[in-house]
């Protein structure tokens, strides 16, 4: 396997009560690459993310992280500690914590029980949080409860929390859902900035947004890869038109 490979899925299948959510799926994500994954509802996008983050175990197939780490053997916290950050479709932040605390809790640090009990916030951590607040444009809201933010602001806070983890791979599920056009474009810009330093996999329905990302696109259908390439290339694929874009 190439040294550039960050994540390698080979022949992964997973069924729920006879329904094949993922069917012989193979995928390679390179280091620093940004990839958009599109597909109709039920194409297996969320299950794919669940498998990568250790929430769901595949029935068959390999999921390899970096050189040789087997991702089918780790749990959610384990995958996070390896460097996989995940953003949910519905923005999920800690609503009763302040914006600032949300970021502090996400910062890369000792995650053990006693490590957190005796944790003391360092100047470096404070500086990093200031930097992130600036990046996701929430400096003015730092002392507000996260539950009081607007939908778009929550989405950004969650992206900020992901970045605070400093993951090697970000899995981002429909980041532009419920955003205004301006917010959508700003989110695409933010993700483009992130890619390069981190690998990014974006699951998205919004074609405008995928176009704005300007990256390689993978089309999923019935749990397997239907086509991949540039957006223009896959959009021209008759099968893709039939199953997805044409509808």
């Amino acid at each position, binding site marked *: 396997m190439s040294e550039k490979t960050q994540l390698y899925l080979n022949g992964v299948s997973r069924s729920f009560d006879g329904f094949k959510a993922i069917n012989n799926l193979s995928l390679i994500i390179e280091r620093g690459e940004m990839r958009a994954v599109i597909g109709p509802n039920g194409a297996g996008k969320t299950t794919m993310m669940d498998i990568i983050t250790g929430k769901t175990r595949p029935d068959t197939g390999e999921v390899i992280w970096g050189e040789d780490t087997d991702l089918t053997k780790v749990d959610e916290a384990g995958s996070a500690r390896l460097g996989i950050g995940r953003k949910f479709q519905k923005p*999920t*932040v800690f609503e009763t914590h302040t914006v600032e605390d949300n970021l502090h809790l996400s910062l890369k640090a000792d995650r053990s029980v006693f490590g957190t009990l005796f944790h003391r916030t360092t100047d470096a951590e404070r500086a990093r949080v200031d930097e992130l607040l600036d990046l996701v444009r929430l400096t003015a809201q730092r002392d507000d409860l996260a539950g009081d933010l607007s939908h778009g602001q929550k989405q950004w806070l969650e992206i900020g*929390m992901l970045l605070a983890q400093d993951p090697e791979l970000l899995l981002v599920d429909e980041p532009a859902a419920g955003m205004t056009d301006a917010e959508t474009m700003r989110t695409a810009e933010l993700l483009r900035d992130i890619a390069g330093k981190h690998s990014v996999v974006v699951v998205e329905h919004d074609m405008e947004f995928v176009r704005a990302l300007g990256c390689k696109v993978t089309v999923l259908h019935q749990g397997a890869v239907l086509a991949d390439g540039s957006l223009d290339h896959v959009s021209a694929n008759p099968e893709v038109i039939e199953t997805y874009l044409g509808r």
Partner: protein
Amino acid sequence: MSLTKLIDRRMGIFLGLLFLVTVCVPLGNLVMSPDSALHVPSFAVALMGKYLCYALLAVALDLVWGYCGILSLGHGAFFALGGYAMGMHLMREIGDRGVYANPDLPDFMVFLNWDRLPWFWHGFDMFWFAAIMALVVPGLLAFVFGWFAFRSRVTGVYLSIITQAMTYALMLAFFRNEMGFGGNNGLTDFKDVLGFDLQSDATRVGLFVCSALALAGGLLLSKWITASKLGKVLVSIRDAESRTRFLGYRVEGYKLFVFVVSAMLAGLAGALYTPQVGIINPGEFSPANSIEIVIWVALGGRGTLVGAALGAIIVALSKTLLTGWIPEIWLFALGAMFILVTLYLPKGVLGFIEASRDRLRPKAKAAPVKEAEA
């Protein structure tokens, strides 16, 4: 962590009041003459000591329920186990002053024709051993129970049900004479503790002061835990468990930690309770008792620690007054209190007091709430 973060406004006020009571009650009992209007009768000292034990138990439950969302309906079990550990020591202290005057065996064992002390009663003749066991046994039960429950990701109402089953099972077990804990009658007829006569006023006052200190210590320990980064992780688990997992926190470890700490605080409360009420029996394990603890916390204000302590004292005091006055209506009154608080005071009595204060002095609210990091 700075002191201001540990002792915030509500904690300061509560500890101040607690200190005042802890100074005044012993003075009123020991110094004032029985004819004086300021005299505090001995039964009232023991009663207030009992309330303080309940308050500590409520703080223990608030730590897991208010901050980590673990609604335990079995916290009475940890309390009772702590109470039994201390009760076993007090039984051994009786020595040959029992009815059967057996120097080694408590009366109930002689009555059952046992000829030697069961293995698990050894060591309880030493106070320090019993004191440690009052913390270790509840802690160990919480650890084993939590280890399986939290690793299997049992949450919400299912967890509440199995905690309830746990305390119920323990109640049935402790009712059995063969268990060796005095069966139905439990442990009672205590004479003295550390050489002090349990019937004397000075001993009662001493136990009362110990209960107040334990409550203050339990509050400060809980506050320290909840104000730390770990405390913030606990709240995160309460509000968005899977988000917390995906940030790399092993949720089960955090739950286990706080559950064990809470069980040990409950055990401490039980150990102080037994000598003050003079009896511990399997009724303390009854599910209804554990549910009542939840009512204390909800009534006082969940997730505030101080509110939980306040709630326990309010309910226990009303219970004493009402059961003395018109005993038949106590359960209805408890139910009514719970319903009224749920409907009209969602943040409990403490939340209501603080909201009223802010309404009376709206300007005070403008002050920045967030304190600087320590």
